[in-house]
Protein backbone atom coordinates (compact mmCIF):
# COMPACT_ATOMS: atom_id res chain seq x y z
CA UNK A 1 0.00 0.00 0.00
CA UNK A 2 1.45 3.32 -1.03
CA UNK A 3 1.10 5.88 1.69
CA UNK A 4 2.25 9.38 0.71
CA UNK A 5 3.53 11.42 3.58
CA UNK A 6 1.18 13.72 5.37
CA UNK A 7 -2.38 13.68 6.51
CA UNK A 8 -5.44 14.38 4.38
CA UNK A 9 -7.51 15.25 7.42
CA UNK A 10 -6.22 16.25 10.82
CA UNK A 11 -8.10 17.59 13.81
CA UNK A 12 -6.87 18.54 17.24
CA UNK A 13 -9.25 18.80 20.17
CA UNK A 14 -12.21 19.38 17.87
CA UNK A 15 -15.32 20.29 19.86
CA UNK A 16 -18.77 21.02 18.47
CA UNK A 17 -21.60 21.78 20.87
CA UNK A 18 -25.30 22.10 20.24
CA UNK A 19 -26.54 24.05 23.22
CA UNK A 20 -24.88 22.38 26.19
CA UNK A 21 -24.55 18.97 24.61
CA UNK A 22 -21.21 18.26 22.96
CA UNK A 23 -21.96 16.36 19.74
CA UNK A 24 -18.24 16.14 19.06
CA UNK A 25 -16.17 16.15 22.20
CA UNK A 26 -12.52 16.86 21.59
CA UNK A 27 -11.50 14.46 18.85
CA UNK A 28 -8.04 14.14 17.30
CA UNK A 29 -8.52 12.64 13.87
CA UNK A 30 -5.57 11.67 11.70
CA UNK A 31 -6.46 10.43 8.24
CA UNK A 32 -3.35 9.50 6.21
CA UNK A 33 -3.25 10.56 2.56
CA UNK A 34 -4.05 7.72 0.21
CA UNK A 35 -5.94 5.73 2.81
CA UNK A 36 -9.51 4.51 2.76
CA UNK A 37 -10.52 5.63 6.22
CA UNK A 38 -13.61 4.04 7.74
CA UNK A 39 -15.29 6.38 10.19
CA UNK A 40 -17.34 4.07 12.36
CA UNK A 41 -19.81 4.73 15.08
CA UNK A 42 -23.35 4.11 16.25
CA UNK A 43 -26.06 6.47 15.05
CA UNK A 44 -25.82 9.73 16.93
CA UNK A 45 -22.18 9.31 17.88
CA UNK A 46 -21.14 12.51 16.09
CA UNK A 47 -19.91 11.23 12.71
CA UNK A 48 -22.00 13.50 10.51
CA UNK A 49 -21.41 16.50 12.77
CA UNK A 50 -17.67 15.91 12.49
CA UNK A 51 -17.97 15.78 8.70
CA UNK A 52 -19.98 19.00 8.66
CA UNK A 53 -17.27 20.75 10.64
CA UNK A 54 -14.48 19.31 8.45
CA UNK A 55 -16.19 20.69 5.35
CA UNK A 56 -16.99 24.09 6.82
CA UNK A 57 -20.76 23.62 6.87
CA UNK A 58 -20.73 24.07 10.62
CA UNK A 59 -18.19 25.91 12.75
CA UNK A 60 -16.25 24.28 15.57
CA UNK A 61 -16.51 25.58 19.14
CA UNK A 62 -12.83 24.86 19.66
CA UNK A 63 -9.96 22.88 18.20
CA UNK A 64 -8.04 22.94 14.94
CA UNK A 65 -8.94 21.39 11.63
CA UNK A 66 -6.60 20.85 8.70
CA UNK A 67 -7.84 19.40 5.45
CA UNK A 68 -5.39 18.58 2.65
CA UNK A 69 -2.75 20.34 4.68
CA UNK A 70 -4.59 23.66 4.92
CA UNK A 71 -6.11 25.32 7.95
CA UNK A 72 -9.91 25.25 7.98
CA UNK A 73 -12.23 27.04 7.76
CA UNK A 74 -9.86 29.78 6.52
CA UNK A 75 -8.78 27.93 3.39
CA UNK A 76 -12.25 26.61 2.62
CA UNK A 77 -12.51 28.24 -0.80
CA UNK A 78 -9.23 26.78 -2.03
CA UNK A 79 -9.66 23.34 -0.43
CA UNK A 80 -13.25 22.47 -1.31
CA UNK A 81 -12.70 22.25 -5.10
CA UNK A 82 -10.39 19.30 -4.39
CA UNK A 83 -12.92 17.63 -2.11
CA UNK A 84 -15.88 15.61 -3.29
CA UNK A 85 -18.54 15.00 -0.70
CA UNK A 86 -21.72 13.17 0.03
CA UNK A 87 -23.08 14.47 3.33
CA UNK A 88 -26.11 13.06 5.11
CA UNK A 89 -27.76 11.68 2.04
CA UNK A 90 -28.35 13.18 -1.36
CA UNK A 91 -30.01 16.59 -1.79
CA UNK A 92 -31.38 17.47 -5.21
CA UNK A 93 -33.95 19.56 -7.03
CA UNK A 94 -36.84 17.17 -7.67
CA UNK A 95 -38.03 19.22 -10.65
CA UNK A 96 -34.69 18.95 -12.47
CA UNK A 97 -33.28 15.91 -14.25
CA UNK A 98 -30.22 14.08 -12.97
CA UNK A 99 -28.13 15.88 -15.57
CA UNK A 100 -29.79 19.22 -14.73
CA UNK A 101 -28.95 18.80 -11.06
CA UNK A 102 -25.30 18.04 -11.70
CA UNK A 103 -24.97 20.91 -14.17
CA UNK A 104 -26.40 23.22 -11.53
CA UNK A 105 -24.05 22.03 -8.77
CA UNK A 106 -21.06 22.12 -11.08
CA UNK A 107 -21.94 25.68 -12.11
CA UNK A 108 -21.81 26.63 -8.43
CA UNK A 109 -18.09 25.85 -8.43
CA UNK A 110 -16.41 28.79 -10.06
CA UNK A 111 -13.22 26.82 -10.62
CA UNK A 112 -15.04 24.22 -12.70
CA UNK A 113 -14.56 24.73 -16.40
CA UNK A 114 -17.83 25.40 -18.18
CA UNK A 115 -16.35 24.12 -21.44
CA UNK A 116 -16.04 20.57 -20.10
CA UNK A 117 -19.12 20.71 -17.85
CA UNK A 118 -21.50 18.60 -19.94
CA UNK A 119 -18.84 16.03 -20.65
CA UNK A 120 -17.85 15.71 -16.98
CA UNK A 121 -21.49 15.42 -15.90
CA UNK A 122 -22.05 12.73 -18.51
CA UNK A 123 -18.96 10.80 -17.39
CA UNK A 124 -19.89 11.03 -13.72
CA UNK A 125 -23.40 9.73 -14.40
CA UNK A 126 -21.91 6.94 -16.47
CA UNK A 127 -19.55 5.98 -13.67
CA UNK A 128 -22.37 5.42 -11.20
CA UNK A 129 -24.55 3.63 -13.73
CA UNK A 130 -27.17 6.35 -14.11
CA UNK A 131 -26.77 7.10 -17.82
CA UNK A 132 -30.13 5.60 -18.68
CA UNK A 133 -31.91 7.80 -16.12
CA UNK A 134 -29.90 10.97 -16.76
CA UNK A 135 -32.81 12.77 -18.41
CA UNK A 136 -35.40 11.70 -15.86
CA UNK A 137 -36.64 14.13 -13.23
CA UNK A 138 -35.07 13.37 -9.86
CA UNK A 139 -38.61 13.29 -8.43
CA UNK A 140 -38.96 9.92 -10.15
CA UNK A 141 -35.67 8.53 -8.78
CA UNK A 142 -35.57 5.84 -6.13
CA UNK A 143 -33.53 6.40 -2.98
CA UNK A 144 -30.76 4.25 -4.42
CA UNK A 145 -30.69 6.27 -7.63
CA UNK A 146 -30.51 9.52 -5.67
CA UNK A 147 -27.64 8.05 -3.68
CA UNK A 148 -25.85 7.21 -6.92
CA UNK A 149 -26.49 10.73 -8.19
CA UNK A 150 -24.96 12.04 -4.96
CA UNK A 151 -21.86 9.94 -5.62
CA UNK A 152 -21.73 11.23 -9.19
CA UNK A 153 -21.79 14.78 -7.82
CA UNK A 154 -18.85 13.96 -5.56
CA UNK A 155 -16.92 12.78 -8.62
CA UNK A 156 -17.65 15.63 -11.01
CA UNK A 157 -14.00 16.58 -10.95
CA UNK A 158 -10.85 14.64 -10.08
CA UNK A 159 -10.63 14.99 -6.30
CA UNK A 160 -7.84 14.62 -3.81
CA UNK A 161 -10.23 13.73 -1.04
CA UNK A 162 -13.65 12.13 -1.07
CA UNK A 163 -15.81 12.41 2.02
CA UNK A 164 -18.67 9.95 1.85
CA UNK A 165 -21.24 9.89 4.62
CA UNK A 166 -23.07 6.53 4.63
CA UNK A 167 -22.53 6.06 0.87
CA UNK A 168 -24.34 2.73 0.60
CA UNK A 169 -27.46 3.89 2.41
CA UNK A 170 -30.50 2.83 0.39
CA UNK A 171 -28.49 0.86 -2.14
CA UNK A 172 -29.28 -2.72 -3.05
CA UNK A 173 -26.54 -5.35 -2.59
CA UNK A 174 -25.51 -4.89 -6.20
CA UNK A 175 -25.18 -1.14 -5.68
CA UNK A 176 -23.25 -1.69 -2.45
CA UNK A 177 -20.75 -3.84 -4.31
CA UNK A 178 -20.43 -1.23 -7.03
CA UNK A 179 -19.76 1.49 -4.47
CA UNK A 180 -17.07 -0.62 -2.86
CA UNK A 181 -15.46 -1.22 -6.24
CA UNK A 182 -15.74 2.48 -7.06
CA UNK A 183 -14.12 3.51 -3.77
CA UNK A 184 -11.29 1.05 -4.30
CA UNK A 185 -10.64 2.26 -7.84
CA UNK A 186 -10.64 5.88 -6.70
CA UNK A 187 -8.24 5.06 -3.89
CA UNK A 188 -6.04 3.19 -6.33
CA UNK A 189 -5.87 6.42 -8.32
CA UNK A 190 -4.47 8.19 -5.26
CA UNK A 191 -7.64 9.73 -3.85
CA UNK A 192 -8.01 9.64 -0.08
CA UNK A 193 -11.46 8.32 0.82
CA UNK A 194 -13.04 9.16 4.16
CA UNK A 195 -16.12 7.04 4.50
CA UNK A 196 -18.47 7.08 7.45
CA UNK A 197 -20.65 4.11 8.15
CA UNK A 198 -22.44 2.21 10.83
CA UNK A 199 -22.08 -0.96 8.82
CA UNK A 200 -19.07 -2.84 10.12
CA UNK A 201 -19.00 -5.38 7.33
CA UNK A 202 -18.80 -2.59 4.80
CA UNK A 203 -15.91 -0.88 6.51
CA UNK A 204 -14.13 -4.17 7.12
CA UNK A 205 -14.33 -4.99 3.41
CA UNK A 206 -13.06 -1.78 1.93
CA UNK A 207 -11.08 0.26 4.44
CA UNK A 208 -7.39 0.39 5.21
CA UNK A 209 -7.80 2.56 8.29
CA UNK A 210 -10.52 2.89 10.87
CA UNK A 211 -11.65 5.44 13.42
CA UNK A 212 -14.34 4.56 15.93
CA UNK A 213 -16.64 7.19 17.39
CA UNK A 214 -18.69 6.72 20.50
CA UNK A 215 -20.80 9.43 22.10
CA UNK A 216 -18.82 12.25 20.52
CA UNK A 217 -15.41 10.79 21.28
CA UNK A 218 -12.94 9.05 19.03
CA UNK A 219 -12.33 5.87 21.01
CA UNK A 220 -9.90 4.24 18.58
CA UNK A 221 -8.19 4.88 15.27
CA UNK A 222 -5.45 3.32 13.22
CA UNK A 223 -4.81 0.79 10.47
CA UNK A 224 -7.60 -1.77 10.29
CA UNK A 225 -5.31 -4.75 10.92
CA UNK A 226 -3.87 -3.13 13.99
CA UNK A 227 -7.28 -2.44 15.43
CA UNK A 228 -8.43 -5.94 14.68
CA UNK A 229 -5.38 -7.64 16.14
CA UNK A 230 -5.69 -5.70 19.36
CA UNK A 231 -8.78 -7.78 20.08
CA UNK A 232 -8.73 -11.32 21.44
CA UNK A 233 -8.19 -14.19 19.04
CA UNK A 234 -10.39 -17.32 18.94
CA UNK A 235 -9.80 -20.91 18.36
CA UNK A 236 -12.49 -22.94 16.68
CA UNK A 237 -12.38 -26.71 17.32
CA UNK A 238 -14.51 -29.11 15.31
CA UNK A 239 -15.05 -32.27 17.29
CA UNK A 240 -17.73 -34.72 18.38
CA UNK A 241 -16.32 -34.60 21.92
CA UNK A 242 -17.42 -31.10 22.75
CA UNK A 243 -17.57 -31.40 26.52
CA UNK A 244 -14.21 -33.06 26.84
CA UNK A 245 -12.64 -30.45 24.54
CA UNK A 246 -14.18 -27.65 26.56
CA UNK A 247 -12.70 -29.14 29.69
CA UNK A 248 -9.26 -29.23 28.12
CA UNK A 249 -9.53 -25.67 26.83
CA UNK A 250 -10.70 -24.39 30.22
CA UNK A 251 -7.75 -26.12 31.87
CA UNK A 252 -5.45 -24.35 29.38
CA UNK A 253 -6.94 -21.01 30.37
CA UNK A 254 -9.13 -20.40 27.31
CA UNK A 255 -12.75 -19.41 27.65
CA UNK A 256 -14.90 -21.87 25.74
CA UNK A 257 -18.10 -20.70 24.09
CA UNK A 258 -21.07 -22.35 22.56
CA UNK A 259 -20.77 -24.07 19.21
CA UNK A 260 -23.54 -24.17 16.69
CA UNK A 261 -26.16 -26.67 17.61
CA UNK A 262 -24.48 -28.08 20.72
CA UNK A 263 -27.29 -26.96 22.95
CA UNK A 264 -24.98 -26.77 25.92
CA UNK A 265 -24.62 -23.58 27.86
CA UNK A 266 -21.02 -22.61 27.34
CA UNK A 267 -20.52 -18.93 27.01
CA UNK A 268 -17.76 -16.53 26.19
CA UNK A 269 -17.47 -12.83 26.54
CA UNK A 270 -17.54 -12.32 22.82
CA UNK A 271 -20.63 -14.38 22.30
CA UNK A 272 -22.34 -12.86 25.27
CA UNK A 273 -21.72 -9.43 23.85
CA UNK A 274 -22.83 -10.20 20.35
CA UNK A 275 -25.87 -12.29 21.20
CA UNK A 276 -27.13 -9.98 23.90
CA UNK A 277 -26.78 -6.86 21.82
CA UNK A 278 -27.33 -8.06 18.28
CA UNK A 279 -29.69 -10.97 18.28
CA UNK A 280 -29.96 -10.72 14.53
CA UNK A 281 -26.28 -11.17 13.85
CA UNK A 282 -24.89 -14.63 13.25
CA UNK A 283 -23.10 -15.83 16.35
CA UNK A 284 -19.72 -16.17 14.76
CA UNK A 285 -18.62 -15.84 11.17
CA UNK A 286 -16.98 -19.23 11.18
CA UNK A 287 -20.23 -20.90 12.16
CA UNK A 288 -22.21 -19.10 9.58
CA UNK A 289 -19.76 -19.74 6.82
CA UNK A 290 -18.62 -23.29 7.47
CA UNK A 291 -21.04 -25.04 9.74
CA UNK A 292 -20.39 -28.58 10.83
CA UNK A 293 -22.41 -30.19 8.06
CA UNK A 294 -19.16 -31.13 6.37
CA UNK A 295 -18.19 -33.10 9.46
CA UNK A 296 -20.97 -35.44 10.54
CA UNK A 297 -21.59 -35.47 14.30
CA UNK A 298 -18.75 -32.96 14.83
CA UNK A 299 -19.69 -29.67 16.47
CA UNK A 300 -17.86 -26.37 16.43
CA UNK A 301 -16.54 -25.16 19.75
CA UNK A 302 -15.31 -21.61 19.99
CA UNK A 303 -12.96 -20.45 22.71
CA UNK A 304 -11.47 -17.02 23.14
CA UNK A 305 -8.04 -16.04 24.28
CA UNK A 306 -4.99 -18.03 23.32
CA UNK A 307 -3.54 -17.35 26.72
CA UNK A 308 -0.09 -17.12 25.20
CA UNK A 309 -0.19 -20.68 23.95
CA UNK A 310 0.94 -21.80 20.53
CA UNK A 311 -1.93 -23.25 18.48
CA UNK A 312 -0.10 -26.54 18.04
CA UNK A 313 0.29 -26.84 21.81
CA UNK A 314 -3.48 -26.53 22.19
CA UNK A 315 -4.09 -29.20 19.56
CA UNK A 316 -1.52 -31.47 21.20
CA UNK A 317 -3.24 -31.04 24.57
CA UNK A 318 -6.65 -31.81 23.03
CA UNK A 319 -5.39 -34.91 21.26
CA UNK A 320 -3.52 -36.09 24.34
CA UNK A 321 -6.80 -36.04 26.21
CA UNK A 322 -8.51 -38.16 23.60
CA UNK A 323 -10.48 -35.40 21.92
CA UNK A 324 -11.15 -36.32 18.29
CA UNK A 325 -10.06 -33.09 16.62
CA UNK A 326 -11.52 -32.91 13.14
CA UNK A 327 -10.86 -29.28 12.51
CA UNK A 328 -8.91 -26.52 14.21
CA UNK A 329 -8.68 -22.84 13.29
CA UNK A 330 -7.24 -19.75 14.91
CA UNK A 331 -8.95 -16.49 14.02
CA UNK A 332 -8.17 -12.96 15.02
CA UNK A 333 -10.98 -11.00 16.63
CA UNK A 334 -13.61 -9.71 14.25
CA UNK A 335 -13.98 -5.99 13.99
CA UNK A 336 -17.44 -6.34 15.36
CA UNK A 337 -16.29 -7.73 18.68
CA UNK A 338 -13.64 -5.08 18.86
CA UNK A 339 -16.26 -2.48 18.09
CA UNK A 340 -18.61 -3.67 20.79
CA UNK A 341 -15.84 -3.72 23.33
CA UNK A 342 -14.93 -0.15 22.37
CA UNK A 343 -18.34 1.43 22.23
CA UNK A 344 -19.59 -0.74 25.03
CA UNK A 345 -23.20 -0.51 24.08
CA UNK A 346 -25.68 -1.61 21.49
CA UNK A 347 -24.63 -0.62 18.05
CA UNK A 348 -27.72 1.21 16.96
CA UNK A 349 -28.35 2.91 20.26
CA UNK A 350 -28.20 6.69 20.01
CA UNK A 351 -25.45 7.93 22.29
Amino acid at each position, binding site marked *: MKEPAGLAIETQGLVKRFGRRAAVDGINLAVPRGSIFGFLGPNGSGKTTTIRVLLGLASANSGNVRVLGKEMPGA*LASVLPDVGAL*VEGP*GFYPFLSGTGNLLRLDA*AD*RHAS*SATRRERVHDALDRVGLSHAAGKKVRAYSLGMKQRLGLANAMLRPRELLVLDEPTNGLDPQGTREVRALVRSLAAGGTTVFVSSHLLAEVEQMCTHVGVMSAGRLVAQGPLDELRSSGEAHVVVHTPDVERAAGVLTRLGLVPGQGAGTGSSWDSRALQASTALHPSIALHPSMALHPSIALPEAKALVATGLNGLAPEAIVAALVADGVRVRGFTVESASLEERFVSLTGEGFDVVG
Partner: protein
Amino acid sequence: MGSSAGWALLGSELSVLFRRLRTWAMLIALAAVPILIAVAVKLSSRPATPGRGPLFLDRITQNGLFVAVTALVVCVPLFLPLTVGVVAGDTIAGEANLGTLRYLLLAPAGRIRLLLVKYAGAVAFCFAATATVAASGALAGVVLFPVGPVTLLSGDTISVGESALRSLLIAAYITVSLLGLSAIGLLISTFTDVPVGAMAATIVLSVVSQVLDNLPQLEWLHPWLFSHHWLGFADLLREPVSWTSFGENAVLQAAYIAVCGALAYARFSNKDVLS
Protein backbone atom coordinates in the same frame (compact mmCIF):
# COMPACT_ATOMS: atom_id res chain seq x y z
CA MET B 1 -11.15 28.65 -14.75
CA GLY B 2 -11.36 32.35 -15.34
CA SER B 3 -13.58 35.12 -14.12
CA SER B 4 -16.36 34.36 -16.58
CA ALA B 5 -17.02 31.08 -14.79
CA GLY B 6 -18.25 33.13 -11.84
CA TRP B 7 -21.35 34.05 -13.81
CA ALA B 8 -22.35 30.47 -14.45
CA LEU B 9 -24.07 30.25 -11.07
CA LEU B 10 -26.21 33.30 -11.84
CA GLY B 11 -27.18 31.79 -15.18
CA SER B 12 -27.98 28.51 -13.47
CA GLU B 13 -30.01 30.30 -10.80
CA LEU B 14 -32.11 32.13 -13.38
CA SER B 15 -32.67 29.01 -15.44
CA VAL B 16 -33.69 27.00 -12.37
CA LEU B 17 -36.01 29.79 -11.21
CA PHE B 18 -37.67 30.31 -14.56
CA ARG B 19 -37.92 26.63 -15.42
CA ARG B 20 -39.88 25.94 -12.25
CA LEU B 21 -43.55 25.21 -12.70
CA ARG B 22 -44.30 27.34 -9.63
CA THR B 23 -42.70 30.43 -11.17
CA TRP B 24 -44.72 29.98 -14.32
CA ALA B 25 -47.92 29.44 -12.38
CA MET B 26 -47.38 32.73 -10.56
CA LEU B 27 -46.55 34.64 -13.74
CA ILE B 28 -49.61 33.23 -15.48
CA ALA B 29 -51.79 34.21 -12.51
CA LEU B 30 -50.35 37.73 -12.67
CA ALA B 31 -50.93 37.89 -16.43
CA ALA B 32 -54.56 36.91 -15.82
CA VAL B 33 -55.23 39.99 -13.65
CA PRO B 34 -55.24 42.62 -16.43
CA ILE B 35 -57.10 40.24 -18.73
CA LEU B 36 -59.82 39.72 -16.12
CA ILE B 37 -60.06 43.46 -15.50
CA ALA B 38 -60.29 44.24 -19.21
CA VAL B 39 -62.88 41.55 -19.89
CA ALA B 40 -64.98 42.53 -16.89
CA VAL B 41 -64.95 46.20 -17.87
CA LYS B 42 -65.70 45.36 -21.49
CA LEU B 43 -68.72 43.30 -20.49
CA SER B 44 -70.16 45.75 -17.96
CA SER B 45 -69.20 49.20 -19.23
CA ARG B 46 -71.87 51.79 -19.89
CA PRO B 47 -71.54 55.31 -21.29
CA ALA B 48 -70.20 57.86 -18.81
CA THR B 49 -72.85 59.96 -17.09
CA PRO B 50 -72.86 63.40 -18.73
CA GLY B 51 -71.26 66.03 -16.54
CA ARG B 52 -69.17 63.47 -14.62
CA GLY B 53 -65.91 61.97 -15.68
CA PRO B 54 -65.62 58.26 -16.31
CA LEU B 55 -65.09 56.00 -13.30
CA PHE B 56 -61.53 54.91 -12.57
CA LEU B 57 -61.89 51.52 -14.21
CA ASP B 58 -64.13 52.81 -16.95
CA ARG B 59 -61.40 55.08 -18.21
CA ILE B 60 -59.92 52.10 -19.97
CA THR B 61 -62.96 51.86 -22.26
CA GLN B 62 -61.86 55.16 -23.78
CA ASN B 63 -58.29 54.05 -24.26
CA GLY B 64 -56.97 50.49 -24.04
CA LEU B 65 -53.56 51.76 -23.00
CA PHE B 66 -54.95 52.41 -19.53
CA VAL B 67 -55.42 48.67 -18.92
CA ALA B 68 -51.76 48.13 -18.13
CA VAL B 69 -51.55 51.01 -15.66
CA THR B 70 -54.84 50.05 -14.02
CA ALA B 71 -53.73 46.42 -13.66
CA LEU B 72 -50.42 47.49 -12.10
CA VAL B 73 -52.30 49.67 -9.60
CA VAL B 74 -54.51 46.71 -8.71
CA CYS B 75 -51.56 44.30 -8.37
CA VAL B 76 -49.24 46.47 -6.26
CA PRO B 77 -50.90 46.09 -2.85
CA LEU B 78 -51.31 42.32 -2.79
CA PHE B 79 -50.69 40.21 -5.88
CA LEU B 80 -47.16 41.38 -6.60
CA PRO B 81 -46.00 41.23 -2.94
CA LEU B 82 -47.55 37.77 -2.73
CA THR B 83 -45.54 36.35 -5.60
CA VAL B 84 -42.37 38.23 -4.67
CA GLY B 85 -42.76 36.96 -1.09
CA VAL B 86 -42.88 33.39 -2.38
CA VAL B 87 -39.69 33.79 -4.44
CA ALA B 88 -37.75 35.86 -1.89
CA GLY B 89 -38.78 33.68 1.05
CA ASP B 90 -37.69 30.59 -0.85
CA THR B 91 -34.17 31.84 -1.67
CA ILE B 92 -32.11 30.22 1.10
CA ALA B 93 -34.77 28.31 3.04
CA GLY B 94 -35.88 26.52 -0.14
CA GLU B 95 -32.36 25.28 -0.83
CA ALA B 96 -31.98 24.23 2.80
CA ASN B 97 -35.27 22.38 2.62
CA LEU B 98 -34.26 20.43 -0.49
CA GLY B 99 -30.83 19.64 0.98
CA THR B 100 -29.18 21.40 -1.95
CA LEU B 101 -27.84 24.22 0.21
CA ARG B 102 -25.07 22.03 1.64
CA TYR B 103 -24.08 20.81 -1.81
CA LEU B 104 -24.01 24.35 -3.23
CA LEU B 105 -21.76 25.39 -0.35
CA LEU B 106 -19.55 22.34 -0.81
CA ALA B 107 -19.20 23.02 -4.55
CA PRO B 108 -18.03 25.63 -3.26
CA ALA B 109 -20.38 28.40 -4.23
CA GLY B 110 -19.13 30.68 -1.45
CA ARG B 111 -21.63 32.01 1.06
CA ILE B 112 -21.55 35.67 0.01
CA ARG B 113 -21.65 34.77 -3.65
CA LEU B 114 -24.61 32.46 -3.12
CA LEU B 115 -26.47 35.15 -1.19
CA LEU B 116 -25.85 37.68 -3.98
CA VAL B 117 -26.89 35.27 -6.71
CA LYS B 118 -30.03 34.33 -4.80
CA TYR B 119 -30.93 37.99 -4.38
CA ALA B 120 -30.25 38.65 -8.04
CA GLY B 121 -32.67 35.86 -8.89
CA ALA B 122 -35.35 37.46 -6.71
CA VAL B 123 -34.74 40.83 -8.39
CA ALA B 124 -35.09 39.22 -11.81
CA PHE B 125 -38.40 37.80 -10.68
CA CYS B 126 -39.60 41.22 -9.46
CA PHE B 127 -38.91 42.58 -12.92
CA ALA B 128 -40.47 39.59 -14.70
CA ALA B 129 -43.61 39.80 -12.54
CA THR B 130 -44.12 43.51 -13.12
CA ALA B 131 -43.31 43.27 -16.81
CA THR B 132 -45.76 40.39 -17.15
CA VAL B 133 -48.61 42.47 -15.73
CA ALA B 134 -47.70 45.44 -17.93
CA ALA B 135 -47.33 43.36 -21.10
CA SER B 136 -50.47 41.35 -20.54
CA GLY B 137 -52.35 44.58 -19.76
CA ALA B 138 -51.11 46.27 -22.92
CA LEU B 139 -52.08 43.24 -24.98
CA ALA B 140 -55.56 42.98 -23.46
CA GLY B 141 -56.08 46.74 -23.91
CA VAL B 142 -55.06 46.71 -27.55
CA VAL B 143 -57.26 43.71 -28.31
CA LEU B 144 -60.40 44.79 -26.45
CA PHE B 145 -60.45 48.60 -26.57
CA PRO B 146 -59.70 51.47 -28.93
CA VAL B 147 -56.18 52.80 -28.69
CA GLY B 148 -55.18 56.40 -29.15
CA PRO B 149 -53.18 59.30 -27.80
CA VAL B 150 -53.18 59.35 -23.98
CA THR B 151 -54.10 62.32 -21.84
CA LEU B 152 -51.76 62.62 -18.87
CA LEU B 153 -52.60 63.79 -15.34
CA SER B 154 -51.07 67.16 -16.23
CA GLY B 155 -53.50 67.51 -19.13
CA ASP B 156 -50.90 67.04 -21.84
CA THR B 157 -51.44 64.47 -24.52
CA ILE B 158 -48.81 61.98 -25.56
CA SER B 159 -48.56 59.55 -28.46
CA VAL B 160 -49.14 55.82 -28.25
CA GLY B 161 -45.40 55.13 -28.50
CA GLU B 162 -44.63 57.59 -25.72
CA SER B 163 -47.34 56.04 -23.54
CA ALA B 164 -45.77 52.61 -23.96
CA LEU B 165 -42.56 54.15 -22.70
CA ARG B 166 -44.43 55.57 -19.68
CA SER B 167 -45.85 52.10 -18.96
CA LEU B 168 -42.33 50.70 -18.95
CA LEU B 169 -41.26 53.49 -16.63
CA ILE B 170 -44.06 52.58 -14.22
CA ALA B 171 -43.05 48.92 -14.44
CA ALA B 172 -39.51 49.95 -13.55
CA TYR B 173 -40.80 52.02 -10.63
CA ILE B 174 -42.76 49.06 -9.26
CA THR B 175 -39.82 46.72 -9.76
CA VAL B 176 -37.70 49.08 -7.66
CA SER B 177 -40.53 49.24 -5.10
CA LEU B 178 -40.34 45.48 -4.63
CA LEU B 179 -36.56 45.34 -4.07
CA GLY B 180 -36.84 46.20 -0.38
CA LEU B 181 -39.41 43.48 0.14
CA SER B 182 -37.15 41.02 -1.68
CA ALA B 183 -34.28 41.89 0.65
CA ILE B 184 -36.56 41.36 3.66
CA GLY B 185 -37.58 37.97 2.23
CA LEU B 186 -33.92 37.01 1.72
CA LEU B 187 -33.10 37.97 5.31
CA ILE B 188 -36.00 35.96 6.76
CA SER B 189 -35.03 33.06 4.51
CA THR B 190 -31.62 32.78 6.19
CA PHE B 191 -33.29 32.13 9.55
CA THR B 192 -35.25 29.01 8.71
CA ASP B 193 -35.16 25.74 6.82
CA VAL B 194 -38.91 25.93 6.20
CA PRO B 195 -39.52 27.94 3.02
CA VAL B 196 -43.27 28.28 3.57
CA GLY B 197 -42.60 30.01 6.88
CA ALA B 198 -40.25 32.52 5.29
CA MET B 199 -42.70 33.15 2.45
CA ALA B 200 -45.63 33.70 4.80
CA ALA B 201 -43.62 36.01 7.07
CA THR B 202 -42.50 38.12 4.10
CA ILE B 203 -46.02 38.45 2.73
CA VAL B 204 -47.45 39.27 6.17
CA LEU B 205 -44.83 42.01 6.59
CA SER B 206 -45.85 43.56 3.28
CA VAL B 207 -49.46 43.73 4.46
CA VAL B 208 -48.49 45.05 7.90
CA SER B 209 -46.39 47.78 6.31
CA GLN B 210 -49.30 48.92 4.16
CA VAL B 211 -51.74 48.86 7.08
CA LEU B 212 -49.36 50.94 9.23
CA ASP B 213 -48.97 53.33 6.31
CA ASN B 214 -52.71 53.98 6.50
CA LEU B 215 -52.84 54.78 10.21
CA PRO B 216 -52.68 58.58 10.58
CA GLN B 217 -51.54 58.18 14.21
CA LEU B 218 -48.26 56.70 12.97
CA GLU B 219 -47.44 59.48 10.55
CA TRP B 220 -43.87 59.80 11.87
CA LEU B 221 -43.28 56.19 10.84
CA HIS B 222 -44.68 56.44 7.33
CA PRO B 223 -41.57 57.67 5.49
CA TRP B 224 -39.68 54.65 6.87
CA LEU B 225 -42.12 52.01 5.71
CA PHE B 226 -40.92 50.12 2.65
CA SER B 227 -44.39 50.25 1.13
CA HIS B 228 -44.70 54.01 1.59
CA HIS B 229 -44.03 54.93 -2.04
CA TRP B 230 -45.55 51.82 -3.60
CA LEU B 231 -48.38 53.72 -5.29
CA GLY B 232 -46.39 56.92 -5.82
CA PHE B 233 -45.85 56.47 -9.54
CA ALA B 234 -48.50 59.06 -10.53
CA ASP B 235 -45.64 61.54 -10.97
CA LEU B 236 -44.52 59.51 -13.95
CA LEU B 237 -47.80 60.35 -15.66
CA ARG B 238 -47.12 64.06 -15.78
CA GLU B 239 -45.42 66.22 -18.38
CA PRO B 240 -42.61 66.86 -17.74
CA VAL B 241 -41.95 63.72 -15.71
CA SER B 242 -41.39 64.46 -12.02
CA TRP B 243 -38.60 62.18 -10.76
CA THR B 244 -38.92 63.14 -7.10
CA SER B 245 -40.99 60.17 -5.97
CA PHE B 246 -38.90 57.79 -8.10
CA GLY B 247 -35.78 59.07 -6.37
CA GLU B 248 -37.26 58.96 -2.86
CA ASN B 249 -38.53 55.45 -3.46
CA ALA B 250 -35.17 54.30 -4.82
CA VAL B 251 -33.32 55.71 -1.80
CA LEU B 252 -35.74 54.06 0.62
CA GLN B 253 -35.49 50.69 -1.14
CA ALA B 254 -31.70 50.98 -1.27
CA ALA B 255 -31.66 51.54 2.49
CA TYR B 256 -33.73 48.40 3.03
CA ILE B 257 -31.43 46.45 0.71
CA ALA B 258 -28.36 47.69 2.59
CA VAL B 259 -29.72 46.92 6.06
CA CYS B 260 -31.38 43.60 5.28
CA GLY B 261 -28.46 42.58 3.07
CA ALA B 262 -25.98 43.28 5.86
CA LEU B 263 -28.08 41.38 8.40
CA ALA B 264 -28.57 38.47 5.98
CA TYR B 265 -24.81 38.36 5.40
CA ALA B 266 -24.10 38.47 9.14
CA ARG B 267 -26.55 35.66 9.73
CA PHE B 268 -25.69 33.46 6.77
CA SER B 269 -21.91 33.75 6.84
CA ASN B 270 -21.78 32.17 10.31
CA LYS B 271 -24.75 29.88 10.06
CA ASP B 272 -24.30 26.19 10.77
CA VAL B 273 -25.85 24.49 7.79
CA LEU B 274 -27.39 21.43 9.38
CA SER B 275 -30.19 20.78 6.94
